[in-house]
Every structure is written in structure tokens, then in C-alpha cells.
């Protein structure tokens, strides 16, 4: 018979063992759960100590309700990856909406592609391999492809966007966009915008409405490039001013209604045919509720760019990565002290 003291030790030993087993069982029975220490600083910041299971996107999902906002945490803390035990600050607000730094300001390149071919580059055509190489370059070099809504929130100084942001757009509605570009975009998971001129859709080499719908359901934002692709900035020779005005109204209002009807989507952005515009066109776009419009001026856009004259860089012909890199200007040097 063990002595009472020894008996107590044995009982305590059994309980300890049971307790440890229980703890181990509980820990292993819920692998997805982990608790990290966190400190809230008003409604502005949270300080967290990352665990081994944390990633920037898991933290963004947990604290910013959006895993895609991992860049916001990375940029605030000047880090690219996360390690266990690392203490970091999660900003709960856009801390640098204009992308302003002491020696530069942020700019966003907006790319525009027209059509694609398997092998031959053309006047407005990019080859499949070049396009693939462009997307690969963006992915591997830390560029963030953002949507037009994100771009406009940046231009309106409402939201911050990642430092290396790029917008991808496609114009007109050539079928090769569906056949060649779409699978590549899908592979990389990049969002994009397709500006269609509605009279073209369903024509010879053009995309069909069915295909447009499919693109729309797969991350493509469908927006408009007028009805007939006429140059909006100039009056035709034999056209009276009133006729020109009526034509403008139709070019601007009709595609909006048609896209709404076909896709049940609101059209708020317009790409100017040939990139040309004038004051009258802009006034009319505003009257019809367009949020922004796009030219084809080869420049990147700072937040203070004119929303109705947003620059885009057209890409066509033979465009290898070396050439492509030059278009991707994401900041402009300027002393801001």
C-alpha cells in the first residue's frame, strides 16, 4: 500500500497525464484555429504577433476582411514575407491614398490590347507568346493588376492601391480576345476590362454576345466604346452641329442601355474611339452618368489625373518583354518636401 503522500503524488500524476492528453486532443482536434496576441490602437491599427500559420493574406482576411489586401500590411511594414513571431502593424485605413512619397508620387499604367494572333504580330495585333510573356512578367515581378473601380477609387482619392498597380484593358471586341487572351488571363487570375463598340459585337471577326457574357462572368468588366466607333471629337464634313450633337448622344447613351439589357451590368466607363475627345463629349458623358473615360495617350496616371482623360498605353505589333517593361511606369520622381 503506498503512503498517503505517495498516493497523492500518484493521483496528481494521473491527473496531470489526463490533462496533457486532453490538451493535446483539443489542440489537434481544431488545426485551423490559432490565437495570436493582438493590440488594437483606436480604430486605426492592430498590432499582431504572427504565428507560424499566419500569412499576409490570412491576416488581411482576418483583420481587413479581404485576403487580397495583403499588400496593405506588407507596404505599411515594409516587408515582403512573414515569419513566425514577427510583430507587425495592420493599418485599418488607407494610409497613403495618393501614393505620395518624399521623392515621388505613384502613377498607374493602363494597358490596352486590341487583338491577338497565334504567331504573327500586326498593326493592332499582339502574338499569343508575347501576351503570355507580358502577363508572366507582371506576375513574377510583383505587379498588382487592379480593376477599373479600384483605379477610379485611387483617382478619386478614396482608396489606396498597391504600389505597383497596373490596369489591363481590351478594346473593340475582336474574337481573338476570347480565344487567345481570355485563357491566359484566366490562368493568371488577372482582372480586366473589355471596352466594346456595340455595333461590332456579333460581326465577322468579332466576339458574340454569348462570349461577352461568358467573359463578364469570368472576371472581365464589360464597358463601352460607343455604338459605331466614330471619332467623337470631330464633326463630319457634311454633318450639321445639331446632327453631330444627336450622334454623340446616341454613341454615348445607346451602348449603356444595350449592355444593361444584355448583361444586366451598369456601364460607367468609356474608351474614346481613337482616343479622341473634346469638352462637349466630356460634358455629355457626365450628364449620362459615366464615371470616367479613357484616351490612348501613352502615359501612366497619377491620382490627380483628369478622370475623363485617363491615359492608356496601347500595345500592338511586336512587343517583347524589354519593350513592355518600359510601359510599366509606376511612379514619377518629384521632390515633395
Amino acid at each position: 500500500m503506498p503512503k498517503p503522500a505517495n498516493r497523492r503524488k500518484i493521483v496528481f500524476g494521473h491527473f496531470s497525464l489526463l490533462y496533457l492528453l486532453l490538451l493535446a486532443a483539443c489542440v489537434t482536434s481544431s488545426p485551423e484555429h490559432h490565437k495570436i496576441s493582438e493590440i488594437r490602437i483606436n480604430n486605426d491599427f492592430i498590432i499582431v504577433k504572427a504565428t507560424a500559420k499566419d500569412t499576409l493574406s490570412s491576416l488581411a482576411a482576418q483583420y481587413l476582411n479581404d485576403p487580397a489586401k495583403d499588400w496593405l500590411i506588407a507596404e505599411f511594414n515594409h516587408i515582403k514575407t512573414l515569419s513566425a513571431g514577427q510583430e507587425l502593424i495592420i493599418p485599418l485605413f488607407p494610409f497613403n491614398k495618393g501614393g505620395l512619397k518624399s521623392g515621388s508620387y505613384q502613377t498607374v499604367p493602363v494597358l490596352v490590347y486590341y487583338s491577338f494572333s497565334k504567331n504573327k504580330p500586326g498593326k493592332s495585333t499582339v502574338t499569343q507568346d508575347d501576351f503570355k510573356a507580358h502577363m508572366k512578367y507582371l506576375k513574377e515581378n510583383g505587379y498588382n493588376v487592379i480593376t477599373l473601380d479600384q483605379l477610379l477609387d485611387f483617382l478619386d482619392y478614396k482608396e489606396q492601391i498597391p504600389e505597383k498597380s497596373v490596369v489591363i484593358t481590351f478594346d473593340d471586341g475582336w474574337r481573338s480576345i476570347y480565344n487567345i487572351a481570355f485563357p491566359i488571363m484566366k490562368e493568371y487570375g488577372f482582372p480586366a476590362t473589355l471596352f466594346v463598340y456595340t455595333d461590332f459585337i456579333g460581326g465577322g471577326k468579332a466576339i458574340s454576345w454569348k462570349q461577352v457574357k461568358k467573359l463578364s462572368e469570368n472576371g472581365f468588366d464589360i464597358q463601352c466604346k460607343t455604338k459605331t466607333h466614330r471619332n467623337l471629337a470631330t464633326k463630319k464634313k457634311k454633318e450639321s452641329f445639331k446632327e453631330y450633337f444627336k450622334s454623340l448622344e446616341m454613341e454615348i447613351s445607346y451602348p449603356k442601355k444595350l449592355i444593361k439589357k444584355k448583361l444586366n451590368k451598369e456601364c460607367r466607363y468609356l474608351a474614346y474611339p481613337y482616343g479622341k475627345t473634346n469638352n462637349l463629349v466630356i460634358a455629355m458623358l457626365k450628364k449620362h452618368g459615366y464615371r470616367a473615360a479613357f484616351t490612348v495617350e501613352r502615359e501612366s496616371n497619377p491620382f490627380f489625373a483628369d478622370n475623363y482623360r485617363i491615359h492608356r498605353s496601347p500595345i500592338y505589333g511586336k512587343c517583347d518583354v524589354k519593350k513592355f517593361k518600359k510601359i510599366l511606369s509606376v511612379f514619377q520622381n518629384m521632390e515633395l518636401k
Partner: protein
Amino acid sequence: MRNDMKSLLNIFLLIIVLFFFTGCAGVREFLEEISDKIAEKAPEGKKALISSSYLEKALEYEKDNELQTALFYMQIAGTLDPDNTEIPEKIAGLRSAIDKKAGRHFAKGVAFYKKRKFKDARRQFLTALRYAPGHKDAFDYLKNRLPPKEYINYKVKNKDTLKGIAKKFYNDPSKDFLIAYFNNLKTDKKPVPGTMLELPILGLEFTRPSIDIRNELIKAENLLKEKRYQEVLGVIGKINKYDRLNKKATDLKNAACYQIGIELSRQEKYPEAIEMFKKVAPEYQGVKEAIQQVANKELMKAKNFLKQKQYEQTLAVAGRILDYDKSNKAAKDLINTTFCQKAKDLIIQKNYSQAVKVLDKADPEYFCVKNAISDVKKAMKKQADVHYLQGVKYFLNEELKSAIKEWEKTLTLNPEHKKAKKNIKNARSLLEKLEKVY
């Protein structure tokens, strides 16, 4: 020890009971609660340590002039260490520095904007916004005021009609529908006075010129070749009615005005030549030199006037030079020399008050002006004494009224002459007494 063992045993038992009734979730909640309580009781030193690292970062950012980031870190440090009394002061200091810097750059931006130096203005507004991201006015300038507008605002006046406004702005009354469209009005109704309308700014191609600008430009070019400069200006005037910014027209106007100026200068019509040169863009080749040549010729002319003591003409010519060349030193020298000479002449004529008036117009920093002022003062004093003595003479001869007149002259020239004042008083009193006696 025994009590510790007992309390541990109680916790174990509680965990087991919890496990049986609530499973792992209950146990986990219980453990988390305990760990939270332990964290709450975490040693103060740890919090202070964390706080100090943020404080250090804040100070580093402040040193680097990254004031917003410094403020973020300072606020974090302050929340972590609420007992630190220095942090709130530092936060207030940072806020004040941010406000000051943003305010200064914004003010600079507005000044540049007013001078139409838009690039410089933009840089200042961006800097203001970098320091103070919530600076609404800086943002307004960047986003709304700096970009060109597509509308002009127009306040409707009492007798305005849409057709009238369209005629005024578009040179075309039939564009009334455009005003109606963009302002949600009906063309057949009069706009309400006081309403602010938005009128889209139309490009040249949409306003209705009654002339063919291209033809008119060719015409102006040919006239310039034929040296019919005044006619060139006539044609350009017509073009400018429809297109004020036409570069070709501006170039032709500059050339014509320059040539007319040269011709006028040859005819010694200097003021007219200068008027013409002023119409030429300052960067136009040769215009600065032409103005300088005219200025030199005018100076010669002015110097000749001065030699002949034609002071008014000298001043007129030299003044004209300063009108178009404010920093022309020779003209300034000439004007002041003229004032001195004129004043000296007036001193000789004993017209001291006029001499003073002339010298008032001169620049007192000029040596000759200083001398002339001193001369006139001395002369006035001397003359005052002459009148005083003359007054004494009259007084001794019992000519009291004449004596008073002389002393009054003395006071006009030297108001501080005490004896003259006293003598006038005595003489008047004597006169009164004498009048009573007789």
C-alpha cells in the same frame, strides 16, 4: 504548498468536467479566458518595452521628415504606454508641424496658381497633401482647379434669353438647344435671372466663324511679305475674334508689330514705336534690343532738352522711358538731375516754395537732391533774416504795419523764428494802443 496543489487539482477537475460536458470548444474557451487574464496581468515592463520600440521608430521617421508616419507610430506608442506623459506632447508637436508645413506649401501653391505657374503650383499642392493627406483645399486645387474645365459658369441677367446667351458665347444663337440640354431647360422658356448656367466650352471647329481662317492666314502671310504691316494686323484681328490662341496668327502679329515699330523708330516717333514694340511677345527675336535702341535715342533727346533748360520736356521723355523700362538707371538719373537744376533756378529766382515742391518729387537719396534741399533751406533762412532786419528798420522808423508785414514774411520762410513771432505780437499790441489814443 498544499493549497497550491489543491487549487491546481481543482483546475484539472474543472477542465475534465468541462471536457465531458462541452468538448474541446469549452475547454479552449476556458483556457483562452485564463490566458487572457494572464495577459492582462502581463508585467508593465513588457508593454513599456513594446511602446519604446514604436517611440524610437516614430522619432526616426520624424528625423527623416516623414511626419505622417512618425505620427502613426507616436500614436501607437501613446496607446501602448498611456502613462508616458511626454508622448501626448510629442503627438501635439507633430500635428502642429504637419499643419504648419502643409499650410506653408499650400499657400505657396496658391501663389503659383495665381501667377499661372501651374507646374510649380501642382508640386506645392502635392507636398501639402503628403504632409497632411486630409488637406481638402490642396486636393481641390489638384483635382478640380488645375485641370482645364469643360464648362464656363454664367449667371443669367435680367433680359437674357437662351438665344442671346448662345449668340454671346458661341457666336451662334441656334446653339440655344445646347445650353438648354446641359442645364435641363426648355428652349422656348426664358431662363430665370440669377440662375447659374453651365455652358460647355466648344472648340474652334464648333463655333461659327464667318471667315475661313486658313485663307486669312495665307492672306496675312502674303501681306507681310509685301511689307503691308498695318493690313496684316487687320487680318489677324479678324482671326483672333474666333481663335485667340492661333499660333500662326500670333507669329504674324509679332512680326508685323515689330516691323511697324522699327519704321516708327526710324521716323523718330519713339513713343509710337515703343507702343508697337509692347504689342510684340517679349521673347520675339530682336524686340528687346529694338526697345533698348529707342530708349537710348530718347535719352539723347531728353539730355538735349535738359541742356536747353527745357525741364518739362526732359521729364516727359525720361518718364516715358521708365514706363517701358522701369529699371532704366540713366532715365532715373536724368529725372533727378532735372529736378535739381530746376530747383536751383528757382532758388536763384528766390521762389523757394516752388523749389521745395520740385524737390519733393525727387529721390532724396540722390546726392544732387540732398545738396539742393540743403541749399534751399539755407537760402530760406538767410532770406528770413533779411526780412527780419528790414522789419526792425521799419519798427525803428515807427512804421509798424510795414514792420509786421516783413516779420510775417520771415515766419513764412522760417516758422521757427522766435524773435519775429515776439515782435509781431508787440507791434500789434502797440498798434492797438495807438489806435485807442488817436
